[in-house]
């Protein structure tokens, strides 16, 4: 999939691209969650659960901050979700190149992030998700995480060591030559 003569993506740029793709993938996941929560298949999503059951407890004793969080939490929960997505995108670029190029990498990476949440974050934080989750919710979380992985990995070429820069920048560089 690589083209000889084209500039390759450096480590820093690749991570930045990973952050961007991770954010976009999280946004896509959000869109699916709008549907699954709207249909009543999911009660509380993981970022919701972390913030509302645990993280806000840290700041709830600061009245002004608590008021700010309570009245703007819809946006804050969404931003937190995108942030997790961005971190996941950056982490994806640290996988070995051979793994990143595998055609099932998106599926596997998405599933791995979901399993990571189920087995570590939820029980450690004592979230409801670790105890009272319904099978359909568990399935929906698995599906939306897989969607995240697939969108993040994309054509699984962008993050490869020999991958190309994103289109617009590549065109600019080529034009300067």
């Amino acid at each position, binding site marked *: 999939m690589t083209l000889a003569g084209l500039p390759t993506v450096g480590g820093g740029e690749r991570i930045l691209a990973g952050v961007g793709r991770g954010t976009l993938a999280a946004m896509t996941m959000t869109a699916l969650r709008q549907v699954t929560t709207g249909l009543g298949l999911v009660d509380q999503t993981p970022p919701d659960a972390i913030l*509302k059951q645990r993280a806000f407890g840290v700041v709830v*004793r*600061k009245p002004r901050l*608590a*008021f700010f*969080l*309570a*009245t703007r*939490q819809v946006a804050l929960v969404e931003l937190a979700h995108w942030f997790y997505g961005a971190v996941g995108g950056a982490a994806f670029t640290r996988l070995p190149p051979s793994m990143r190029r595998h055609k099932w990498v998106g599926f596997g990476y998405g599933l791995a992030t979901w399993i990571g949440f189920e087995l570590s974050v939820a029980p450690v934080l*004592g979230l409801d998700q670790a105890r009272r989750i319904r099978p359909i919710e568990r399935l929906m979380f698995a599906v939306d995480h897989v969607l995240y992985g697939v969108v993040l990995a994309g054509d699984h070429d962008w993050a490869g060591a020999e991958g190309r820069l994103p289109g617009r920048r590549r065109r600019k560089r080529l034009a300067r030559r």
Partner: protein
Amino acid sequence: MRVAEAMTRDFLTTRAEEELGEVARRMIERWVGSAIVEADSPGSAPGILTERDVVEVVGAGDDPRRTRVADHFTPEATSAAPDWPLERAAEAMDRGGFRHLVVADGDPVGLLSILDIMRSWTSERSRDLTVQISEAMRRDFLEVEGTETVREAARRMVERGLGAAVVAAAKPKSAPGLVTDRDVLEVAAAGHDPGTAQVADHLSQRMTFSAPDWSLKQAADAMTQGGFEHTVVVDRNGTAGVISISDIVHRLLA
């Protein structure tokens, strides 16, 4: 857990002939919401004076500095034994609609407040506290204006049987305030005239906010660690309700 493990042993005592304003001052000084009133005669049960009694005096337009404890305390108060399980004491409070119990073993040995119970339950029953605040909060809360007098606010709180009132925000989208039994007690203790003192000048400093879909655990932790009993519940549209320690205990007993 037993009552003896959660109660306060270093309680405040008073006598029936004492002036109410002075007892209010000592309650604020010790930061407690009640005092045991010594029994008239040996062998009879002690009484209890709570901040709610002081709020009733203020709401009725009486001057706490010219009133005696004898006219307002609860004689032969409901008491708990030190070896009662906390659930039994909580049930007694929930049924009676009060927040303090005298703990007696012949003589008074301690005072148990609903906050003491919640302090024990935040860790002991944390699994039951994962439900959302909206499931336990009071939606028919009382709202007063900041320009109202403390006496008027106290009268309305007593009328509704509530321990707190939300104070309307001065500007749209800004945070509302809260006035509680404790704030009225502070006004009485400081010797201010509740008939002229405005609510806006005596808002609770110890309070916080939560959203309806946060967990009861978060509200309970904030209140027990902060030493206050009410949290204002807000959402994008403004004040949605008020959650108190009593509401949480009631939910846990249900």
